[in-house]
C-alpha cells in the first residue's frame, strides 16, 4: 500500500533533518509514499488557537486532496498530526463545522468524505512495518547508545490511539530494535513550552531546562524527539537555559535520524550535520561505525 505523505511547513525549514532521515528510513524499509500534491499549511497550533473554524477548512483541503488517491496519510510533524486528527473529529461531531468545511471545499472543487486515516510514522513503523523487520535490516547496531525518548504533547494527546497517553513506548521499541537502550525518562510527555520561548521567554527556558537536566541526570547520551518544535527548542536554547539554571550538553536528534543511521544511511544524508550540539563524539565514544 502507498501512503499519502504530508510533510508540513517545519520539515521544509528548521526540521529539514526530520524529513531527510525519515525518507531514508522509508526507502530502507520499502515503505511507499507519495507527497500530497500542492498541500497547504495545516494552520498549526497558532491558527487553531485563534481561529479554529478556519483551521478546520485549511486542514480539510489537505484531507480532501489526500483522499483522492490514498486511504492513509503519514503526518510526521506533531502539530500537523494533531490538527488533521482534530479536524476529522470535529467534522464528525459538529454539523455546523461540517457545513462550513464542505461549503468551503465546494468552492474550490474538492470534497471530503471522511475516508482517510491520519497516522504518525511511529505508528506505521511499529504496527505496519514491525520492529522485527527493522531489527533484521540493521546494518549499524547502536551499541547500547543511551536515549531519553521524548514525545512531547501533541503526538500522544489527545487523539492518538496507537500508544499510551501517559507512558508511550513506541519510540523506545523501535530504537531498541536497532540496539539502543532507553533510560528512565518520566518527563517524556511533558510540554517543552512550544512557542512560549518566543512569547514568554523566561517560562519557556524553565520548561526546556527541566527536560534537558532530567535526561542528563538519568544518564542519557542523546534525547530523541518526534516533533520539529521540541527538537528546535531543546537544541537551540540549550545554552540560554543553561545560563539561567545550570549547563547541559545534550544532543537532540529526531528518532528517524538514529533509525536511518542504523539502517545504513550515510551520516551526511540524514541531517546529522545540521545539529547544534555535536553528536559525532557520542557515536565515537560508543564505537558506532556509521556510514
Amino acid at each position, binding site marked *: 500500500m502507498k501512503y499519502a505523505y504530508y510533510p508540513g511547513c517545519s520539515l521544509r525549514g528548521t526540521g529539514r533533518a526530520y524529513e531527510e532521515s525519515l525518507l531514508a528510513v522509508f526507502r530502507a524499509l520499502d515503505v511507499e509514499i507519495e507527497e500530497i500534491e500542492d498541500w497547504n499549511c495545516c494552520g498549526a497550533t497558532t491558527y487553531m488557537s485563534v481561529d479554529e473554524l478556519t483551521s478546520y477548512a485549511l486542514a480539510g483541503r489537505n484531507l480532501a486532496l489526500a483522499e483522492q488517491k490514498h486511504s492513509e496519510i503519514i503526518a510526521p510533524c506533531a502539530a500537523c498530526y494533531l490538527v488533521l486528527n482534530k479536524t476529522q473529529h470535529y467534522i464528525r461531531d459538529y454539523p455546523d463545522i461540517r457545513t462550513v468545511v464542505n461549503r468551503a471545499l465546494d468552492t474550490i472543487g474538492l470534497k471530503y468524505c471522511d475516508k482517510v486515516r491520519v497516522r504518525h510514522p511511529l505508528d506505521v513503523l511499529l504496527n505496519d512495518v514491525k520492529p522485527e523487520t527493522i531489527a533484521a535490516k540493521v546494518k549499524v547496531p547502536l551499541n547500547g547508545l543511551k536515549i531519553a525518548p521524548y514525545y512531547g504533547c501533541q503526538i500522544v494527546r489527545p487523539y492518538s490511539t496507537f500508544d499510551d497517553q501517559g507512558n508511550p513506548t513506541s519510540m523506545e521499541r523501535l530504537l531498541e530494535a536497532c540496539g539502543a537502550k532507553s533510560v528512565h525518562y518520566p518527563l517524556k510527555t511533558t510540554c517543552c513550552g512550544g512557542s512560549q520561548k518566543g512569547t514568554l521567554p523566561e517560562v519557556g527556558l524553565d520548561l526546556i531546562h527541566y527536560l534537558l537536566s532530567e535526561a542528563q541526570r538519568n544518564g542519557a547520551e542523546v534525547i530523541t524527539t518526534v516533533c520539529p518544535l521540541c527538537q528546535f527548542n531543546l537544541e537551540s536554547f540549550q545554552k540560554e537555559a543553561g545560563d539561567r539554571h545550570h549547563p547541559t550538553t545534550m544532543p537532540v536528534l529526531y528518532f528517524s535520524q538514529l533509525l536511518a543511521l542504523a539502517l545504513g544511511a550515510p551520516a551526511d544524508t540524514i541531517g546529522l550535520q*545540521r545539529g547544534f550540539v555535536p553528536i559525532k563524539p557520542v557515536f565515537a565514544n560508543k564505537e558506532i561505525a556509521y556510514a
Partner: protein
Amino acid sequence: MELKRTIKFEADRDPEFARWISHTVGGERIRHCLQCGLCSGKCPLSLYMDYTPRRLMHLSREGFKEEVLGSSSIWLCTACYACMVNCPKSINVTHLLYALKQRAIEEKRYPRGFAIPVMARQFSDMVRGSGRITESWLIVKVFLRTSIWRLMGMSGLGLKLLRTGRMPLMRDRIERRADVQKLLDSVAATRKELAI
C-alpha cells in the same frame, strides 16, 4: 493605601459571558466540572498562572468575565492537552482555553506590543498569501513588530540556522494560492450566515 473589596459579589457576574462559554464548540461540558483540580495538577504552566485551570473553569462558567479575560493563564497555555486527557468529566479544558484566548484577542485585552496576537495575525496573513509558512520569515516579521532588540539578540541563532541549511531564504509558496484564498473567504461568509 488602596483598599479593594476582596470578596466577589454575584452582581459582578456577566451572565452573557457565562452563557457564551458554556455554548462554545467543544466546551459544552464545562457545567460538569467537579473542581477536582486534576487539570491544574497536570498543567506544566499552572505554577506561573494567576488563576489555575481549575479556577478558570469555575470563574468562567459563573460569568466572572473581567477576572477571566484579564488572567495571564490564557496566554500561558501551550495547548499540551494534559488537562483534557486527565479530566474525569471529559471536559475539553484546552478548547475552552482556546475560546478564552480568542475572546481576549477580539476584545483586545492584552498589553501593547504583546507577541501572541501579533504572531497569530502574521501567521494567518502568511497562510493567506502563500498557503504555507516559512518559519524564518514569520519570526522576523513578528519581532519587527514587537521587539527589534530581541530580533538583534537572535541574530546568532539565525546565523547558525543559515549555516546548517535550516533557514531557507526563499519563501515557500503553493501553486493554487487562489484556492486557499477562496477557501478562507468561504469560511468567513458561512460563519456570518450561520452566526457561529
